[in-house]
């Protein structure tokens, strides 16, 4: 892959410790292959994932950000994911106005049993990001003027 100089997207994933992180573990245990582009950051719960982190990810040159946690009702802390869901709903409105490319932010529920879904999601968003190309717009924002 990296031998030919095809664009390799940088994908930062904020995931909860109890569902999606374990889902990713399961993908591993079942040897489900997916692209190497994703970097997982483990947090206890989607409730802990702050919008500043998403912005920061873009500042660090992420081409796509993934936020993922437990399905509704499965939250290890009963309602962290519900709180997160609400904040994201409002946050998306803002980013949209700011002209942030919404195709570069993904929200998913992936349970500890959904190794296959984790593989699918990562593969798909990597492919998608490759089509979209590097997130030039935000990189422009970030280079010191």
């Amino acid at each position, binding site marked *: 892959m990296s031998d030919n100089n095809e664009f390799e997207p940088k994908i930062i994933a904020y995931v909860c410790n109890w569902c999606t992180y374990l889902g*990713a573990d*399961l993908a591993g245990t079942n*040897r489900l*292959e997916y692209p190497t582009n994703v970097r997982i950051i483990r947090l206890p719960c989607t*409730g*802990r994932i702050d919008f500043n982190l998403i912005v920061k990810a873009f500042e660090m040159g992420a081409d796509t950000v993934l936020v993922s946690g437990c399905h509704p009702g499965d*939250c*290890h*802390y009963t*309602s962290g994911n519900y709180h997160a869901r609400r904040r994201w709903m409002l946050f998306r409105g803002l980013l949209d106005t700011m002209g942030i490319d919404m195709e570069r932010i993904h929200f998913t529920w992936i349970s500890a049993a959904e190794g296959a879904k984790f593989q699918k999601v990562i593969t798909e968003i990597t492919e998608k990001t490759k089509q979209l190309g590097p997130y030039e717009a935000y990189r422009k924002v970030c280079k010191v003027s």
Partner: protein
Amino acid sequence: MARIGVFTCWCGENIARNVDVEKVAEAIGKLPHVRCSVAYKYMCSDPGQAIMREKIVSEGLTGVVVASCSPHMHLKTFRKAAESEGLNPYVVEMANIREHCSWVHHNKEDATRKAIDLVRMSVAKVLRNHALDPIRVPVTKRALVIGGGVAGIQAALDIADAGHEVVLVERDPSIGGKMAGLSETFPTLDCSQCILTPRMVDVGQHPNIKLHTYSEVEAVDGYLGNFKVTIRKKARYVDMDKCTGCGICWNACPSKKNLSEFDFGMGTRKAIYVPFPQAVPARPVIDANACIKLTKDKCGLCEKKCPAGAINFDDQDELITEEIGAVVVATGYKLYDIGKEQQNDKLAGYGEYGYGKYKDVIDSLQFERIVSASGPTVGEIQRPSDGKEPKSVVFISCVGSRDNAKGVSYCSKICCMYNAKHTMLYKHKVHDGQAHVFYMDIRAGGKNYDEFVRRAIEQDGAQYHRGRVSKITEENGKLIVRGVDTLAGVPVTVEADLVVLAAAMRPADGVEQLAQKLNVGYDEFGFLSESHPKLRPIETNAAGVFVCGACQGPKDIPESVAQASAAAGKVMMMFSRKELTREPEVACVNEQNCAACFACARACPFNAIEQAEIRDRNGNLVKRTARVNPGLCMGCGTCVAICPSKSVDLEGFTEQQIYAQVESLV
């Protein structure tokens, strides 16, 4: 000056096959603050851990990163190892280069590059870790048991016998619960009351058990080890201390026609009554809605007749508080009320069975009273409508159970067994009678259970029809039960004198409200949620609160009792320690910075954040602030995300740690 040690694991071939482990170790070794970076075949093995421990000492490490498998796999292992060398376990982090890398990427070059990133992230994080000490919380060695059925009784007795105080709260005037009303029990057919009432007496007399009957839990404050529970003692109108239970009052009471709750409406009771002769406490209570004095201000016979002067018509509800260390919830079950419209109309149905319309269509608990020697018919099987002995009785399983259309999706579990029991009890009393059972499947898993059902069929000649009943109608004094036998493949019509419906088992009324007071989760049906279906079936997500019996899911007596003892065991485990320790990875507020908007408190799933005031030594208010109760905090971090000024942070996942990880990804 931070001194980090990084230990990269081959995991045999598991990692090394797809990740150039040595290259990772070498690359990481070049990072600032990294004192040593070594790779080894099996870091989790004893020699592997030995290497780590040796380095901790020789290099005077202040932080450790183990690059191997998932932290869910071995984080504890390595933290222990570090601790054994006097390093605080919470300065140990892992990088998951197996599940998240070598096992899912086959291109070695890319996998290695990613592995280096992952380890670098962990190094960046561990540089911001700091020593954490486990949280210690004192324990009040006093248990609250909610519900005085067989489960609650068992739990209470076990804990009390272990030498700890127990507060037992029961909503009804007497303990005993559903079991006290049963006739015989499967699969042994021993008399329910004969085995239960002695246990009830034990509870009544136990020096360590404080019994609050006719009482309900009003409010619960505090946390694990330190609950403050408010209990409402409902007005009983009888002074428990003065009353001797002599019975003159209820014999005198003229208000006779009140349906007996204990007999599930099959019998009647007075306005002043003890629910049943063996009640504990054997003290009467006045039904305010039935009492002529309290409703019409006439009569008052009981008061006049009572030699002890125990009657007090001015009695009021009383609120008391109890200091509690642990809670056992054993609120039990009720039956799906057949045919009735319910708030959740998914649970409305079976009007076609004529329950409530035809006197002789009853539910299983009512039948228990009819066959029970202590019942309204003293064990004579008579049907409600005309007191005749029914010569043909139809028992219908799964009324509401396993029915997504108009009932609950789950199996109520005990009905197959008690149906078999009922057919036997019936046959033993009405020798020329015929029992029919309509069933979907016979579920008789359990010691001597299937044998029991076979006996009902083979020895006591119960007619089992595998199929559902479509409709029950009354024609010239007979109940016409029309159903199908799917094995024979024919429609079946039975002319019955009595029909008994095995209604689905549902959690007792009000359990949701109770669960909310206790911060315990519950499912769509209202059954309380255990914190892990396999490994933590007694615990709940609320620390220090345990569940047992049918409030957690359909159960029979032995299961309820077993689970109750298990819950008692958990409580004793708690009480066996001077103080409890909890994971220190919890939230903490920077009280200097907190603007006291309390958004965090609103969002906290565990009500772990309280509004506090900081006062100077003269007691003047300096400022208000949010404050985390580490005894309650479960460490989800929802508060951190919601705090605009980030005046609250989550140990183990601090803002600094997380941002360091992201920033390491340049």
